[in-house]
């Protein structure tokens, strides 16, 4: 079966800096692939290239068997790809529920008929008139959004109407993931979902991601907390200075001398991760 995501020879320069030198990866249905590496290794740039926020200088991306190199993010969302952002980009003035509903935007059908040229005008008219089909669609999306938010137990459900700016950092990250799930993605890109979370919150998030994987969702994960990577990943790619330096099963990667070198070579960065990486496997 063809991979869900095929990345070939992706490259990106910023001025004189090569952020991503030659990224190649395959991601198969139902797989969880982690990308790890020290800070500045090019992980987030790679995400941006795949998700259409940045244009690659060279290379290609195929998504669900279609060419998606340099495709605008709107189109990728329509194809069924959702992503979260490293520093959490929720819509601050929107309520928790509205944030999640925006995530479902590309699933709107009744109110957004796919008619050329006059499509936007129809959409405007339908939003104003709101016939039964549109109302039913909205109600279904709301119910779905609440179901998705209940993944996080009672963390967000009591706060449906709260503006996102009033939430704690961890809750904002949860809203981001709920927003991504509302797209009903076939491919989910998670950029450090546990960044800035404490131990309890991290364990909770790890369970959520494990459940998503169990439900069959295909996931590309960037993560610094190696414990989580080792437990959840089917395969791991290690990046350093824009290059892929290792790929394989979690246990193989952790013993790879190049990986240990990369982490220890960057003295000032990734200190905690380095310790975890060189820790001998049981």
């Amino acid at each position, binding site marked *: 079966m063809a991979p869900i995501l095929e990345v070939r020879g992706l490259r990106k320069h910023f001025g004189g800096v090569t952020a991503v030198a030659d990224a190649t990866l395959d991601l198969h249905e139902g797989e969880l692939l982690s990308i790890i590496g020290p800070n500045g290794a090019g992980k987030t740039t790679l995400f941006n290239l795949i998700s259409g926020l940045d244009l690659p200088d060279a290379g290609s991306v195929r998504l669900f068997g279609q060419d998606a190199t340099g495709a605008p*993010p709107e189109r990728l*969302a329509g194809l069924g790809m959702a992503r979260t952002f490293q520093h959490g*980009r929720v819509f*601050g*003035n*929107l309520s928790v529920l509205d944030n999640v509903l925006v*995530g479902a935007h590309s699933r709107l059908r009744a109110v957004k008929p796919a008619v050329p040229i006059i499509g*936007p005008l129809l959409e405007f008219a339908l*939003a*104003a008139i709101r016939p039964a089909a549109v109302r039913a669609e909205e109600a279904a999306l709301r119910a779905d959004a609440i179901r998705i938010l209940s993944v996080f137990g009672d963390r967000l459900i009591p706060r449906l109407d709260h503006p996102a700016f009033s939430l704690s950092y961890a809750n904002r990250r949860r809203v981001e993931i709920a927003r991504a799930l509302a797209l009903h993605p076939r491919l989910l890109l998670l950029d450090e979902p546990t960044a800035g979370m404490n131990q309890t919150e991290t364990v909770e998030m790890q369970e959520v991601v494990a459940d998503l994987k169990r439900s069959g969702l295909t996931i590309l994960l960037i993560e610094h907390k190696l414990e989580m990577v080792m437990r959840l990943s089917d395969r791991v790619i290690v990046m350093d200075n824009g290059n892929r330096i290792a790929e394989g099963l979690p246990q193989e990667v952790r013993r790879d001398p190049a990986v240990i070198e990369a982490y220890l070579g960057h003295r000032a960065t990734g200190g905690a991760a380095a310790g975890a990486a060189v820790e001998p496997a049981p």
Partner: protein
Amino acid sequence: MLGAWFDYTVNGFVIGNIYALLAVGLALIYGVANLVNFAHGSVYVVGAYVGWAAITYLGTPLPVTLLCVVVVCALVGVGIERLGLRPLHGASRIAPLLATIGIALVLDQVVQLIFSPDPRAVPMQVPDWRITLGGGTIGALDLLIAGIGLTSAAVLYGFLRFTKLGWAVRATAQDSDAAKQMGVDTDRVNLVVFAIASALSGISGVLVGMYYNQINPAMSFEATLKGIVALIIGGLGNVPGAIGGSLILGLTESYGIALFGTSYRNLFAFVLLIAMLVWRPNGLFAARRSLPPEPMTGTFIARSRPLKVPSWAVAVVILLAALLPLLDAPYLLQIGANSLMYAMLALSLTLVAGTVGQVSLGHAALLAIGGYASGLLALDAGWPVAVAIPAAGLITAALGTLLVFPAFRLTGHYVSIATLGIGEIVSLVILNWTGLTRGAIGLGGIPPLEVFGYDLGSVQGTYWLCLVVLVLLALLQVRLLNSHLGRSWRAIRDDSVAARSYGVSGDRYKALAFGYGGFAAGISGAITAHAYSYINHETFGATISILALTMVILGGLGNVVGAVLGATLLIALPEAFRFLAEYRILIYGIVLLLLIRFRPQGLMGTV
């Protein structure tokens, strides 16, 4: 013939030098404060009047005149930074820009109150001789202006390159957080930059006064605009680029006047502005073509929890408003009708600026399009008024969206600059397209309001019509805000990148917002045109755009009830204090400044 072209070139260079004195300051300020200073032209006017006063009352010689101008304008610059901008650290991203608009209103009004709005002649302080060169001539004043331009550039270069404070300015411009950590006193840097920029702007003002032999308080707006155009040509924050941009602008205008005539002069400047924003938003001298990222500090609009007004309260207010004509107070009704027309404009702007975050500074142009469309349909095509008005709304929706479309990919300050330019272009096209719009004569004898035979030309009729239309528009807007459109619009405002990643296309939803906004504003302009029976290209000017923005901020950005409340308060309150009529715009400016500083979420809260 060749001599004439020589003269046009000299003239272009001189004007370019004057623009450069403005644009260099704008570039410096943008560099350190990430801010397009809309009060810059007001300082230039202050400079012109200080120069005029020094010569007229004190009889100062030229060097002393310039010294007075430099000192006073530098102090004004320090005041702007210290009182208007520094307290806004950490406020929403759009706050400092709005504050400079408020400061501009206040400064202009103060100058006007002190010196009267009448034009003054600045006495020439240089000998009146001209050298003849190959058929053209160069005068002493031309040389003086060129000399001051070159000297200022050289001194500025030396300051930035060789002094410690100059290094601090450059460091702050590159990365103010890093500069602060290295021990640079960035507050002081900001003060110095505002002082230098304002002094240069003042010199520019006094030189212009001598060159055209005339100054008036109203010339500030044009000066700000021209400085911004030159700045954009050179690239925001690029000091040498600003000088290059100014010379290009000066020459373009001078040759443009030679080829097409004076009334086209500003059209060239603004078309150049829009072309630059669309094709080279980083300026002619930048290598990269993409926009620099906007500073990501805080949210775009102030965070707040909007006040919820129960529907029964709204219903009661509407009912009371509908009963107002029974009081038999025609003057009160007149004010009421005016407030309602402004409220329609405010509804439109609160959607565009508040809900979608595109702070339009040219919104009055939509009124002009609506007014002219309806007036011309009724006058020239003979359409009934009741058909012409909604048709004008639709025309404004289509034309307004089309005009702003090139600016859709811009963000933040760029949107404000672009809409300002587009607004000016609309007014200049109306002035120059004589065949359609009757040009400077304006549109007279527009038929009065009537709906299928019912005459609504009376005060009561106008009032009731406005009330019905406003209530319908407001209900529609609330309904749209509660639909998926509302959350999509607000998502684009809060984070357009994240919105796109979830399939919310910026172009599509901005177009829908400008379409609806254009419709509401177009209807407002059309009703105004029929109610006034006469409009011209100046009826809906930049002052109205700024007033509408003040209303919208007063009510709370994006807040429908707030927009209506803001419009009513700002139109009705000055009437209650009629003895203050002279100070009306001054009061608007002060209200705007106080709001931005102390209640950025407005009375009803941002949505």
